[in-house]
């Protein structure tokens, strides 16, 4: 094996790109879970976002509109989950699983005519001045806009949850929905909005895969990224900034194993490709300490 073939600067630079889809999906799910809803359908919303974003981008030739389409697609699918769990009071775990199974089928069906097509180019931005700094420039400041968009969304979510009235209501709904209801807050409406936001973010994450990272459409292309996003929310202890850490850690493992594959490691490729999933399990074991929102996963039914 030739370890010198691995360029540490390129490795760190691609880490941010590898982490972005997971980060986007995870920040959406974090908001959903802070509102007290466990949506296990992230994988399904992500892949639906991936295909709808791809279709829109190919049709319009504009990746930005593609991302919008992906957010709309993910949000639309998440509303199915929302109506079932919030208005028809179905079990959240089962409904989330159904959403994943349904999304995988739906995306495969939608993407039929789009196999083997390349997505329109989504150029990197060079942040003026900063991009020219040696070492740090290429690692941090020469990526496509969505990498920074993801970080902006995290910052926005942090500000929303901790420094706004609406964020406080959302957290109250998630901690104790009966008390929030008694105080006159709209539990269902809050949760529906959170679920739609989560769906839109998962859609963006999926579209990042199909429009930037791969950039092609293939069936089942998310390959568990949505589940890893769910794991990272647990790892982060439902705190936005730790989510970034988790996503980058995961991105690091992914990029490292891809680089080791390319460098011709003595270990067969199949074993290397297990590593992101094993790393996720390890992380879950070590970081199982966070306190989850009080009403997470419980069905809310107002008797009055």
């Amino acid at each position: 094996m030739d370890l010198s073939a691995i360029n540490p600067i390129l490795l760190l630079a691609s880490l941010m790109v590898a982490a972005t889809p997971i980060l986007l999906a995870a920040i959406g799910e974090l908001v959903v879970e802070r509102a007290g809803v466990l949506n296990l359908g992230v994988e399904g919303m992500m892949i639906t976002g991936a295909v709808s974003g791809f279709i829109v981008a190919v049709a319009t030739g504009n990746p930005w509109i593609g991302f919008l389409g992906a957010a709309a697609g993910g949000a639309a699918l998440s509303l199915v989950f929302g109506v079932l769990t919030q208005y028809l009071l179905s079990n959240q775990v089962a409904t989330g699983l159904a959403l994943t199974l349904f999304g995988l089928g739906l995306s495969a069906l939608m993407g039929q005519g789009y196999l083997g097509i390349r997505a329109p180019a989504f150029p990197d931005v060079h942040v003026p001045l900063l991009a020219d700094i040696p070492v740090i420039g290429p690692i941090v400041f020469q990526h496509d806009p969505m990498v920074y968009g993801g970080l902006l969304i995290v910052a926005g979510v942090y500000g929303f949850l901790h420094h706004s009235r609406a964020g406080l209501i959302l957290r109250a709904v998630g901690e104790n929905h009966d008390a929030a209801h008694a105080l006159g807050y709209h539990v269902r409406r809050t949760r529906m909005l959170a679920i739609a936001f989560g769906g839109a973010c998962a859609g963006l994450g999926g579209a990042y895969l199909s429009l930037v990272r791969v950039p092609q459409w293939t069936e089942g292309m998310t390959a568990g990224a949505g589940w890893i996003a769910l794991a990272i929310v647990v790892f982060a202890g439902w705190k936005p900034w730790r989510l970034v850490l988790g996503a980058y850690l995961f991105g690091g493992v992914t990029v490292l194993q891809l680089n080791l594959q390319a460098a011709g490691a003595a270990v067969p490729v199949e074993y290397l490709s297990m590593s992101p999933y094993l790393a996720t399990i390890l992380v879950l074991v070590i970081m199982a300490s966070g306190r989850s929102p009080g009403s997470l996963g419980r069905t809310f039914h107002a008797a009055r």
Partner: protein
Amino acid sequence: MIRLEKRPQPSRGWSYAAPVLAVLLTMLLGGALFAALGQNPVVVIRTIFLDPLFSEFAWFYRPQLLIKGAPLVLIAVGLSFGFRAGIWNIGAEGQYIIGALVGAAVGLALYPLESRWVFVAMVVAGAFGGWAWAMIPGLLRVKFGTNEILVSLMLVYVAESLLAAMALGPLKNPEGMGFPGSRNLSQYPGAANLDLIAGTGLHWGVVAALIAVICAYVALARHIFGFQVRLAGQAPRAARFAGVRPARLVLVCMGLSGALAGLAGLFEVAGPAGQVTIDFNVGYGFTAIIVAFLGRLHPIGILAAGGLMALTYIGGGIAQSNLGLPAAAISLLQGMLLFCLLAVDMLTHYRVRLTMRKVA
């Protein structure tokens, strides 16, 4: 104004009617979907749900019903115990793969020994493989409080990678001219899981599935274990007072579902599939989740639901070859079925009241 009122007891009538209603609703929605795809909805629905049983070529499809239904029922019965108790083993697909791998490895190691005991050893090894794979999330939950949903699911991807590594590496057929995949177990008489009555599709997996249904029924209705599972699901606090040890329940439920999924994998790899190949698994482990819910987590219900789901697989195959329906449409239909069931299930637990909005 529509209001939902929680029933003091889940409605018995609706709990039977809901799955039927869900299937009908799925046919309607599915029909609309197929119409949108430019197909004649009536023809497609008939092809999927009726042709495998009643068409001219039904003699060819009926055995398939057993072959496809057996693994679904076997896995779903195992899952139903955990699901009842709030223990979510979502990684049956992984346990299915590992069961098949371990079982096949034992069979291939003993090749070309001519003894029926080879198959027996494989069955034991297959169950062990699935059990051991399910023990990982089980033990992690018990020891570290790790979420078993995420861990068992991550292990599906690990198992898929392991399957690819095995099919290309240690288990590869030494006389296979370099093609990936193991020796064909169904052509190795000591290890083959062939039809017990030729041409019926009735192999050992079907027998195992039926035994599992009967045992699960007895366990649920008459045995202390079934009582503990039901208690833990319906009243976790009462269960603790009644002496149910949560950790043990987790391990038993995970182990049981893993072992049954492993068995399903072994019967598949030694019979209908025949060999370990990169993509020998076809998602039975995930479809079994739908089967478990559609069957109301009840053994007899699961038997019926497994049959229905097998029907959609076969009918979907027919629709694919005869009508050019995309394969994805079937998995979409299966997901839709679970959605419909979850939606209709509301009627089991809640009463719908139409009320006049009172003027204050």
